[in-house]
């Protein structure tokens, strides 16, 4: 008998038929009786004092039902952490980026709402602005917030071992600087919110979210209503990629408008608003100094990183740490110092991104290539010599319980033909490698753990109740798959109630890659709780021990004698007739160090486990145009265990598109004095079907000791390592190491020109 019936199989996702027919409802699709349309008025200034706001004309416009400004709120400041509370949902004193919300209206239709915005008279007093990291930290620079002198929002300092000693003992030391501008999420679904209040003062609200509980708490705080009156409802979500992790001003504005108008309100963002006024990914400049021995083993690293955080903290302390943490997990480095600074500028707010800190990850990796070239060691061997291993501790003291980094390097190398290709390809044809590691969930305050309930129906079917949210990656299916597997049911026997704060218990959210590991474990434990209770009943009826039973095919049978069985439905009915509870509960809190804190104490177990992966890319560059043709990409990742292999492949392939093809070739935001010049779909170049190369997927399984069935994260690592591999491959093809990303055709042509000039200059004569 096979060990599993559903786990590890290519199970069809439970949610996709509804998505294929148009039946799946996204937030913007919702219509409620008497619903109004809400719109936000946005600041035309990157930095300005708000002198006065006159909304009287807008209020008098027929069809306008509510107008709100900061006066309608209590001036509360919100932040992910107590020490980063700095953002008002409608600012009272000043605006800090172009596009920040200053007022909002709800009207009977969109045209009326837009007309009303034009009638709101805001008097601003323009203030000097800062748009770059250098300008923001320069002496005498305009200050964004009193709380952050010199516009330094966050400083993360990590110092492990003895880097001076490490550098002194090094055979080769080099220092390089890497940079990249901001990238945008471009989720399929533009942001949208629908909110309504009932007579009892309960808020019902729908929006894309990466954790309904993460939305409910700030809503409760700012609306001054108890948490049990905030009902963030389940809704289909059109992608997140890190960009739906926090409360949005739109959520709060929509709720305030609905409360003031006593009617439901819907706000739907335009594509431009989604780009400018949700979150963006950080721009980054990082200086990396690395010392190695003769064999290329890293002995010391000293890294200084400046990230442009935009106008507010958002997830600042986390965002400033994660680029470093991914790389300290991926590669061994005993002596290391990291100084990460998040700098505030008068630009939109930056959050967490699936390809978080591309210049950081690419910098670490391409510098290994440079060092390898100087030592005569090929890039793949450089990775093998520095790869993280099972049983290691990371520099910041996380134990690595399972690690398939070496296996991923070796397998990706074999599949891609690395040995036959590296150094042997024709001119302008290159191959590159990148390795990365990602956390599998870290706690966010009290929402670090996940709970799940399971109730049984008379006919043996179950309903799973969990806070897990699905942003598109397939979390709903994962829950059903696990519950059905544990209880020997079919997916059809399982109903799911999820991501609804009125009903479902606490869960950290689809954040930091934690849902499978933390939420999945909770669901599995709840199912095991049910199973234990059912087994007790069946064992009693059969007069045998509970250890001798198995649940499969809707039956519970004697493992050694499968003929002897009882249907689950019958076991449920026996339980009901005896008034015996057979509902299940499960909860899971990851084994992490509660004393670890992003800024004050960045040491201790960060995440219970980590993923590890390697991407190898092969490219051809046209030296005349600088166009890059990607021939083939091989993605290998240690996912612990593949619960649903095709779902994981989908994550790999999507990761290559976002991190490699988009992140390294075409995606970046362009600016003019705080204004995004390319916020539209035509302006921001995301990969299309004709752009994508052939992708080889290699799933590496290390069976994590604590993951559900051994599983860990699968959604982020490939996206990051793909960026690194593309960077290496293009550098290899051109014969120039690139320091600034993405590597657009203009940069390639320039690099080729400069290389030629340099070579000509070196020719004597």
């Amino acid at each position: 008998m096979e060990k599993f019936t559903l786990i590890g199989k290519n199970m069809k996702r439970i949610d996709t038929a509804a998505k294929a027919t148009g039946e799946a409802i996204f937030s913007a699709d919702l219509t409620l009786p008497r619903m109004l349309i809400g719109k936000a008025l946005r600041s035309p200034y990157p930095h300005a004092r708000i002198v006065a706001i006159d909304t009287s004309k807008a209020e008098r416009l027929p069809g306008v039902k509510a107008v709100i400004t900061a006066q309608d709120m209590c001036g509360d400041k919100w932040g992910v952490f107590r020490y980063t509370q700095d953002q008002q949902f409608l600012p009272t004193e000043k605006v800090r980026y172009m596009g920040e919300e200053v007022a909002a209206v709800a009207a009977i239709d969109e045209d009326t709402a837009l007309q009303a915005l034009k009638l709101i008279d805001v008097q601003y007093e323009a203030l000097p602005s800062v748009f770059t990291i250098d300008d923001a930290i320069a002496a005498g620079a305009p200050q964004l917030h009193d709380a952050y002198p010199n516009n330094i929002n966050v400083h993360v300092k990590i110092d492990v071992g003895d880097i001076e000693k490490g550098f002194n003992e090094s055979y080769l030391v080099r220092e390089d600087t890497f940079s990249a501008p901001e990238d945008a999420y471009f989720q399929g679904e533009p942001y949208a919110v629908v909110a309504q209040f009932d007579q009892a003062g309960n808020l019902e609200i729908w929006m894309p979210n990466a954790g309904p509980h993460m939305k409910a708490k700030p809503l409760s705080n700012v609306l001054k209503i108890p948490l049990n009156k905030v009902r963030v409802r389940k809704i289909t979500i059109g992608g997140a990629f890190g960009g739906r992790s926090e409360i949005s001003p739109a959520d709060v504005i929509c709720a305030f408008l609905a409360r003031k108008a006593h009617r439901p309100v819907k706000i739907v963002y335009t594509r431009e608003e989604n780009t400018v006024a949700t979150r963006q990914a950080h721009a980054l400049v990082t200086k990396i100094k690395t010392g190695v021995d003769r064999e290329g083993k890293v002995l010391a690293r000293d890294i200084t990183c400046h990230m442009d955080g935009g106008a507010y903290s958002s997830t600042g302390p986390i965002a400033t740490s994660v680029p470093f943490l991914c790389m300290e997990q991926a590669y061994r480095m005993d002596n290391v110092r990291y100084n990460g600074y998040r700098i505030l500028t008068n630009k939109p707010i930056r959050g967490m991104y699936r390809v978080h800190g591309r210049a950081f990850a690419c910098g670490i990796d391409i510098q290994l290539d440079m060092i390898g070239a100087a030592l005569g060691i090929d890039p793949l061997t450089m990775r093998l010599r520095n790869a993280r291993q099972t049983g290691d501790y990371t520099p910041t003291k996380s134990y690595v319980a399972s690690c398939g980094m070496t296996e991923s390097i070796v397998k990706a190398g074999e599949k891609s033909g690395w040995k036959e290709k590296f150094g042997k390809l024709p001119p302008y044809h290159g191959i590159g490698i990148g390795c990365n590691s990602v956390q599998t969930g870290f706690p966010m305050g009290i929402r670090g753990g996940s709970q799940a309930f399971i109730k049984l129906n008379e006919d043996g079917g179950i309903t799973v109740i969990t806070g897990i949210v699905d942003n598109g990656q397939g979390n709903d299916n994962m829950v059903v798959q696990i519950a059905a597997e544990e209880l020997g049911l079919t997916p059809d026997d399982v109903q799911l109630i999820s991501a609804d704060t009125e009903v479902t218990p606490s869960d950290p959210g689809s954040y930091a890659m934690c849902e499978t590991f933390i939420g999945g474990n909770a669901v599995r434990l709840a199912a095991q709780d049910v199973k234990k209770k059912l087994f007790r009943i069946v064992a009693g009826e059969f007069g045998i021990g509970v250890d001798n039973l198995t649940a499969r095919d809707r039956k519970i049978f004697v493992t050694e004698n499968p003929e002897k069985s009882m249907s689950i439905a019958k076991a449920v009915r026996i339980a009901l007739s005896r008034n015996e509870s057979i509902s299940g509960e499960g909860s899971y809190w990851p084994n992490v160090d509660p004393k670890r804190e992003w800024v004050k104490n960045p040491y201790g177990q960060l995440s219970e486990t980590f993923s590890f992966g390697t991407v190898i890319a092969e490219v051809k560059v046209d030296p005349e145009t600088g166009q890059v043709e990607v021939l083939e990409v091989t993605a290998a990742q240690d996912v612990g265990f593949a619960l649903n292999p095709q779902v994981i492949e989908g994550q790999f392939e999507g990761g290559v598109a976002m991190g490699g093809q988009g992140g390294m070739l075409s995606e970046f935001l362009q600016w003019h004095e705080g204004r995004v010049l390319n916020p539209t779909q035509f302006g921001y170049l995301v990969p299309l079907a004709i752009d994508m190369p052939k992708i080889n997927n290699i799933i590496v399984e290390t069976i994590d000791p604590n993951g559900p069935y051994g599983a860990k994260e699968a959604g982020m690592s490939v996206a990051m390592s793909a960026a690194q591999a593309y960077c290496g491959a293009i550098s290899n093809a051109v014969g120039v190491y690139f320091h600034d990303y993405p590597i657009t055709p203009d940069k390639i042509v320039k690099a080729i020109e400069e290389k030629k000039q340099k070579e000509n200059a070196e020719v004597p004569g």
Partner: protein
Amino acid sequence: MKEMKRYSLTLTVNNETHALVTPPNRTLLEVLRDDLQLTGTKEGCGEGACGYCTVLVDGQPVRSCLTLAVAMEGRKITTIEGLAQGGKLHPIQAAFVEHHAIQCGFCSPGMILTSYALLNNNPTPTEAEIRRAIAGNVCRCTGYAKIVKAVQSLAGEER
């Protein structure tokens, strides 16, 4: 605000006719979503770049966000709601589900309709032809690999 003149319009959508009265500046997308509650058609960019609002007009994929509703009199419109018959998925929808070509699902209605039109016009497209046909439909989740596979699975023999 001066009221815009309204026009009466008969719209044939998914083999049903709808008598509508609408101002001339409304897009087909707005009429489908707001008047007919056919919310399977999505708006992603409003400028004809993302392909999420794709519907079929006389069998050919069209951006409904760039199409005026009043220009659709007498045309045969198919939205994603019109593909499944009798509650049964159309083979192209089934192939998308089977091959994991759907993640978040926001692009899926447009992507499926474009693929459907391709297969009607060219029952045995090559991989390159599939990629070219769906190049006007953005997908942010899948990297397109499984979408191409789903369409290939219906393209006679896989090539």
